[in-house]
């Protein structure tokens, strides 16, 4: 890797959905002029925080190469994703991994858990023998705090949500990626198990030197684990900085609204009766929702066209 070249860079990226549709001529800007640099030398955790429809998942899909920008460029180790050769694309596919929100949907319930762990090893030819594959898998599971004997040979429904999500962390570890994009990795996990998964994410950075893009609507977990927070609102960055700065001295009214919305675990803290300084009109919420839904539909249409 050349010194000075960022690991991952988004340069003035915008993603617009719709406009050429059969039913709708309306354009929806899911992400607007978004720039982002991930340093190659120091692993960091960057939290992208925003509500539904803020463009955070679109951003994740762009970074993962699942979506191409309408304008601007996404660069991996200095090379434009849109112009990668077959070999470079494979390297990118291994170097950038994803952990998704739903620890139930990613598993095929007819296969044992082992399947999601052996498949990547096979695809990338990382193990020379079944014994070596077994050894690598056990090592990865132990690293995330799971006992191989309690995990392997089981079906997904026999594991808790937390165990399933930690198995996904173990899967990404097998590939030794450079970046992991985690889209709401703990929002579907029981409160008492969240800490273990958050611990795994921190460990990826500290112990394995992997950078993390942590996408969430929950400012508390972002504050807990990240080095930098980027607040997205309607596809635009409204504020970014260090967690202490963002949480203790928020500049933008939307960031303040996010902070005020968190229910404090303190019965004496008045939360319900307070009124918002940034009271939003319900009709704006509806429009935003409509935009978001249309963007989703448009995205699905363009995807299915690509597949054809």
């Amino acid at each position, binding site marked *: 890797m050349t010194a000075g070249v960022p690991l991952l860079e988004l340069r003035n990226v915008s993603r617009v959905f719709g406009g050429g549709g059969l039913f709708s001529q309306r354009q929806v800007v899911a992400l607007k002029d978004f720039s982002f640099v991930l340093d190659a030398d120091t692993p960091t955790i960057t939290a992208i925080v925003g509500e539904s429809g803020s463009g955070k998942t679109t951003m994740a899909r762009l970074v993962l190469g699942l979506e191409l920008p309408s304008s601007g460029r996404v660069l991996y180790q200095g090379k434009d994703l849109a112009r990668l050769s077959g070999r470079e694309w494979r390297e990118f596919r291994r170097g950038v991994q994803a952990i998704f929100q739903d620890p139930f949907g990613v598993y095929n319930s007819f296969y044992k858990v082992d399947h999601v762990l052996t498949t990547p090893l096979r695809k990338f030819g990382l193990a020379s023998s079944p014994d070596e594959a077994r050894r690598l898998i056990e090592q990865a599971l132990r690293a995330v705090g799971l006992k191989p004997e309690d995990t392997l040979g089981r079906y997904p429904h026999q594991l808790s949500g937390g165990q399933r999500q930690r198995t996904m962390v173990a899967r990404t570890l097998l590939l030794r990626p450079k970046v992991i994009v985690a889209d709401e990795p703990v929002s579907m996990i*029981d409160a008492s198990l969240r800490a*273990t998964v*958050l*611990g795994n994410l921190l460990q990826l950075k500290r112990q394995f030197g992997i950078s993390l893009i942590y996408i969430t609507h*929950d400012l508390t977990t972002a504050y807990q684990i990240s080095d930098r927070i980027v607040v997205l609102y309607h596809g635009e960055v409204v504020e970014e900085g260090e*967690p202490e700065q963002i949480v203790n001295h928020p500049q933008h009214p939307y960031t303040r609204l996010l902070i005020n919305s968190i*229910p404090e*675990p303190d019965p004496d803290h008045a939360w319900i009766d307070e009124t918002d300084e940034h009271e939003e009109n*319900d009709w704006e*919420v509806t429009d935003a929702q409509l935009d978001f839904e249309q963007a989703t539909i448009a995205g699905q249409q363009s995807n299915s066209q690509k597949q054809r």
Partner: protein
Amino acid sequence: MQFPTPRGPFTAVDGVSLQLGSGERLGLIGESGSGKSTLALALMRLIKPPAQIVGGRIVFDGVDLLSLPEDQMRSRRLADIALVTQGAMNSLNPVMRVRHQMIDAMQAHGIHLSKHEWEARLAGLLRSVNLRPDVADLFPHQLSGGMKQRVCIAIAISLRPRVLIADEPTSALDVVVQRRVMQTLRKVQNALGVSVILIGHDMGLMAQFAERVAVMRNGQLVEVAAVRDIFARPQHPYTRLLMDSLPSLRQRGSYEVAPV
């Protein structure tokens, strides 16, 4: 409460005794599989066979709901006890305007009004959940998640029930919307003096809403206490675990994972 399984009956709710006062806000906390939602369904007598209630009584105003014939129970649902679930917003009929869904629920309970009276009734209900009256003319897909959930609250309170069970009413919503729905629920609770059972796993929400908190684990009740006591002196180790696992903005935690 038991579910038969190939390996013998599974007890989802095991010997839970709870009392709910008039106008009280009770929080019921526990994680997936702890039996809290099953308990809510049992209170509504919505447990479907083969699952069955094998023992105990559900006494509402001196009447054992379990002994009522089905038609009487049916008329009590919504009128006396109403339920708002996490997925309530998805139970709205997508091809029906909000107006007709609200009227439908009330007509099923024998309320017949003139066109004018319906308008006034619906407008009042929608305003009470902080929605504009013209929301009645919209279809569910035109509403945001928070608005749909508030429509469901409006339907739930349309017959002025005495008890409202809210089963994770906001867990599908993001934080900003969650707060507004909770504010609405609190306002409605205050105005009607209805008793509310709030089910969830977020200790923060419980602290903000409930007067008393009941903690469930593996089908059993492990602790019931006033909310301030729960937060100041959690008795059961599981309650302490729930409290400790809550991330806050006050202090950055340390999450260490020990490799096995």
